[in-house]
């Protein structure tokens, strides 16, 4: 009988457990073979694991850290399952802290999941150096990144395992360049320089992947946070522009006034009220705007009151409006002056079709700076031939309606623009390179 073939050796366990030489706590290695340093989650000591033995690098007795994403938990981001294996708390010399989770997948390597002020970014280490383009921009794969931060970052707390020799208090020079949705980060010390490309991750994706708690609104915005109004402004400009173009077309088609009736009314020198009738006036549109214009060519230091009544011959329904033309001039220590207009323009809205009479009640008046005595009759002197030229026209559109419609069409887009500019101002105000006078 053939002896049984020897069984293949059992696969190495995915997780290797170590004992912390400082506190005796069990420290798990999830990327054994790759991990160089591991931070004890119980006492904060840094352990080196490179040669199979566990060496105490930095002894510490720190308060326990409780990462929001527990180490060892797995979650899927961008279609890949990642395991959180390391956790760093970092800051700019103790201020403006942020948190970094080291993610690991044996087929894809390491990634960073960074939480700054509640916003999440997914960082991929670059294996090439970005191309320096201008004093303030770098280029990666055709995309330009504008400088935003420059400073020094330090490590404040370490938990879990890392692929390099990490230490609390370790400091590096940092620089960040941004474009909407992405941040290019450079870290350098006297030995090496590394570049990481961070992509903004929607909070709901991180919640779904790792079960973190919602953080609420982030304000001021993150450096690489796209304006929620930016993209809409472009679409809104097309929609609003199309609507405004349609409105303009309507104005061209429906605009204007057709003058159909006119009459000349003599003004009595004694200033009594007079009445004149113009007509018949035939209005053919179902409803229309009726425009009434009066010109008083000889008017000087006086005024004319005008009461219009448009009377439907069939129903005796009255459509009424009032107008006045007044004009004054004189001279004083500053020289000659004049005021007012010799014409009056009023409209009657919503007049239905029909045959009408236009009744004009009018009265000429004279004005004197001291009294109303006019030995020579003023502008109403008979030899001056005072008269009023009244014209009636019809149309459809009102300029005020066009203006209101244009404002209402543009208003939502303008509000979006203001919100966008406010967002960008707040975002740029966070930059180390914000223009003088910006928010700090």
């Amino acid at each position, binding site marked *: 009988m053939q002896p049984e073939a020897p069984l293949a050796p059992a696969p190495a366990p995915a997780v290797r457990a170590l004992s912390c030489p400082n506190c005796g706590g069990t420290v798990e290695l999830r990327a054994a073979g790759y991990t160089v340093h591991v931070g004890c989650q119980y006492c904060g000591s840094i352990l080196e694991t490179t040669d199979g033995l566990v060496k105490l690098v930095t002894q510490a007795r720190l308060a326990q850290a409780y990462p929001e994403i527990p180490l060892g938990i797995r979650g899927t981001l961008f279609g890949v399952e990642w395991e959180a294996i390391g956790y760093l708390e970092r800051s700019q010399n103790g201020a403006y802290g942020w948190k970094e989770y080291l993610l690991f997948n044996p087929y894809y390597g390491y990634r960073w999941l960074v939480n700054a002020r509640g916003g999440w970014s997914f960082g991929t280490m670059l294996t090439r150096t970005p191309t320096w383009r201008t004093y303030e921009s770098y280029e990666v794969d055709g995309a330009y990144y504008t400088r935003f931060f420059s400073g020094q970052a330090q490590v404040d707390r370490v938990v879990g395992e890392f692929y390099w020799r990490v230490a609390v208090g370790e400091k590096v020079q940092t620089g960040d360049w941004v474009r909407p949705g992405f941040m290019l980060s450079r870290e350098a010390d006297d030995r090496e320089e590394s570049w990481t490309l961070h992509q903004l991750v929607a909070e709901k994706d991180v919640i779904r992947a790792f079960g973190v708690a919602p953080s609420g609104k982030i304000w001021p915005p993150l450096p690489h946070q796209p304006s929620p109004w930016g993209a809409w402004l472009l679409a809104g400009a097309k929609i609003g522009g199309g609507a405004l173009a349609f409105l303009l077309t309507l104005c061209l088609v429906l605009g204007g006034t057709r003058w159909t009736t006119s009459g000349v009314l003599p003004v009595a020198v004694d200033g009594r009220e007079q009445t004149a009738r113009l007509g018949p006036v035939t209005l053919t549109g179902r409803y229309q705007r009726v425009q009434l214009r009066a010109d008083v060519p000889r008017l000087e230091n006086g005024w004319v009151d005008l009461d219009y009544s448009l009377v439907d011959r069939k129903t005796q329904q009255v459509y009424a409006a009032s107008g006045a033309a007044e004009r004054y001039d004189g001279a004083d220590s500053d020289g000659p002056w004049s*005021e007012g207009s010799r014409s009056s323009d009023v409209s009657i809205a919503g007049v239905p079709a029909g045959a009408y009479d236009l009744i004009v009640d009018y009265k000429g008046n004279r004005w004197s700076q001291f009294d109303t005595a006019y030995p020579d009759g003023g502008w109403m002197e008979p030899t001056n031939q005072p008269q009023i030229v009244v014209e009636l026209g019809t149309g459809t559109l009102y300029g005020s309606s066009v203006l209101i419609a244009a404002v209402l069409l543009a208003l939502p887009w303008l509000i979006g623009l203001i919100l966008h500019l406010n967002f960008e101002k707040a975002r740029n105000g966070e930059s180390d390179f914000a223009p003088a006078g910006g928010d700090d």
Partner: protein
Amino acid sequence: MATRSFLYALWCIAVLGLFLIAAIFGWSPFAEGGRAGGGGVRGTGGGGHYGYYGPHHK
């Protein structure tokens, strides 16, 4: 984003619709005159001069 654009398009359609209705009826909130209250009675509409007559600049 699509929701915002959709709502904005709806807003534009509503504004243009109201504008067209106003145009069809020859109506404006700023018209000086309109239908008088009592049928068959001549009356004064809006748009006339009220109050003080005379120059205002001195």
